[in-house]
């Protein structure tokens, strides 16, 4: 084992360095992922809960989408996929994501404003179709 000492020392140093970077990196960029129902429950308990930013996965309510081409303001209502009771309005400013559509599943990231509107910094469409062409569409 004595022969391997430099190898172990080097490995230990790099492991410590990477570990440190990972630890601090986690602290800075960890984002909780919630369903709309979970987020409402959390913010009811603690109104400042989402101040650090959260991700929410839900579905765009059909008929709720308003997009202003000029100001690029996008407003829509998001609903919990499993619980139609939970809905809240979302506001986002920026170009419309390509695959954004009514009825689509989306992941939004941002924070819940005091007004009850979710201010999204990103809107991602969950395009499962990118990798799996939703075989379930036919199966069900």
């Amino acid at each position, binding site marked *: 084992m004595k022969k391997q000492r430099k*190898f172990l020392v080097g490995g230990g140093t790099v492991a410590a360095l990477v570990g440190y*970077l990972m630890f601090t990196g986690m602290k800075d*960029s960890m984002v909780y992922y919630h369903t709309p129902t979970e987020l409402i429950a959390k913010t009811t308990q603690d109104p400042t809960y989402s101040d650090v930013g959260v991700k929410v996965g839900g579905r765009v309510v059909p008929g709720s989408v308003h997009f202003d081409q*000029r100001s690029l303001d996008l407003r829509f209502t998001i609903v919990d996929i499993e619980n139609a009771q939970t809905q809240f309005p979302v506001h986002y400013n920026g*170009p419309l994501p*390509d695959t954004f*559509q009514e009825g689509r599943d989306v992941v939004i990231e941002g924070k819940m404003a005091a007004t009850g509107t979710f201010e999204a910094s990103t809107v991602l469409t969950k395009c*499962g179709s*990118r990798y799996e*062409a939703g075989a379930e569409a036919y199966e069900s």
Partner: protein
Amino acid sequence: MTQIGEVALWVALAISIWGMGSAFVGGYTRRGDLVLSAERTIIAVFGLLVSCGAIIASFLRNEYVYQYVAGYSNRELSLFYKTTGLWAGQTGSLVFWALLLALFSAITVVQNRTRNREFMPYVTGTLLTVIAFFLVVIVFASNPFKLLPFAPADGRGLNPQLQNYWMTIHPPTLYLGFTAFTIPFSFAIAALMTGRLDTRWITTTRRWTLLAWFFLTCGIIFGMMWAYVELGWGGYWFWDPVENASLLPWLTGTAFLHSVMIQEKRGMLKAWNLFLIIGTFLLSIFATFLTRSGLIESVHSFAQNLTIAWIFLGFLSAGTLVSAGLLWWRRDRLQPESQIESWISREAAFLGNNLLFVGAMFAVLWGTIFPLISEGFLGQKITVGPPFFNRVNIPIGLMLLALLGIGPIIAWRKASSRNLVRNFTVPVLVCLVIGLSMWVGGVRHPQALLTFALGAFVMATITIEFYKGARARAGIEGEGYAKALVSLVDRNRRRYGGYIVHVGLVLTFMGFAGQAYDAEETVVLQPGESMEISSPFGHTYRLTYQDMSWYTAKNMTKLISSLRVEKDGRPAGLLTAEQRAYKQREEMSSEVGIKHAWNEDLYLILAGVDPLTAIRYQIIVMFMLLSAATVAATTTSSLAQRAVFDPGAHRLRDHPTPT
């Protein structure tokens, strides 16, 4: 008729299982007839060819009764995308993966019919095990010939974002890389099984490793190109789980490429090399699984297709356990022949490079699967975004960049102060001068400044290496400098080819760092209106919105907006940005407009059109050097390819069998 493809899959599975058994038994009992039989089962490859042919045929014949075809094609899809439908989705991709591996296996068996005979039973056995594994997944969990309960009149069509040139060549290139790494892996397993743990398994598979690395690199670059032109957010790397997945084997594979040199020269790092190639192989399998399965989105949403996850996890765990067991069993034969004498030596630089690559791999792996871990163990899904990956990988990248310059010029064993002074004075001076002048010139972004200064250091070391080599040749052979330079590279492709790759890497790093100076603006323009934006290199672009036109193509309606571009007051042509509405999927897709220069790109996104025909653009001027990196990678490929396919080189480097 196309059902024959499914029969072919079953036949291939049966044959490969027989071959796998007879290879290992034949190797263990030293029965030549069994080994020969196993090697002949490589004809299973033809079963896979038939199967792939059948899949393509069913795409071309619009047979939407197949779930796979219905999911990725429709009547209006162009012939080109129907043909490449083979690898458009998970199911077909797995068959394609198996086909590539079978082809590579067949080449390996033919290449080694008279060489490496003691390895071949285990090599064949390992390769057939992997082929059989893929066939099991295909046949039992992801059958491309699965029928729908009824035959729909038309398919769902291909996702518009996949209808792009880069996206059609990206998966096959990546798969070529993944599968080619299986060959050195199988030789590593054979070396462990036979106990012949000298450098033979490495030298004999050297070309395969290079080939694998080359394809994997190109595959990753193509993926970046696709993201750049197709996703329309003005970037090429987003630390998406799918991107990360392809990066993981690249990181360990690159480490392996370097560490084998230490074993060849100094007989060190024997167990480490085995560990790296086994890791690279397992990560390739993991990446294939991850990219196509959508697992990472959520364990819950994935529950519908759990069979495939269990088969893959089972195989990965079995692979890890067996490899670890073999390493433990042979630990006595893996003792290093020498040791690292000093921290200031080439061995230490290479070791540092390896540890950093593996460290980066673990960090990326952790960040990628963290949502799954947290959801599974804490019941709370937590994701980490690009800031995490940047935070970890930028410092590691900078250290690797420094080692890129140090490694090739520092002395072996223990660098004397004379060696250090002689080799490092000029590059360090260049580094300082460039760094300082950039600081004076206003570059204050710390990471960008470090990247440019270190990049200059590496470029200086490489230039000196080429100059010294060419000068020596010119002196000895009496050749002119230009000729000497060419023959220098040609005679010592491994060394100078490596330097060329390093140049490409430095340029890529500069491109990444230059992102700190991208200029971005969002504007609304009426016809005839114009706007100006200045680039990081001090150029001024003036864009004038001209008009908008509609165009109806076979399967889409295009909305094309065109702008007149002037660069520094001089006309630079028209630039168009489009929005496309695809009929079948009722989806919009934007096509960005890009104007390339050698050092920067003007990148235009049509963000919206309102009834008054005002259009909104997002305009980004980017510091782009990625194309330069591609050039370097291609150059290396042509060098490497000659090494792979030149039979003369093959024989000359074949080592005599030591006893």
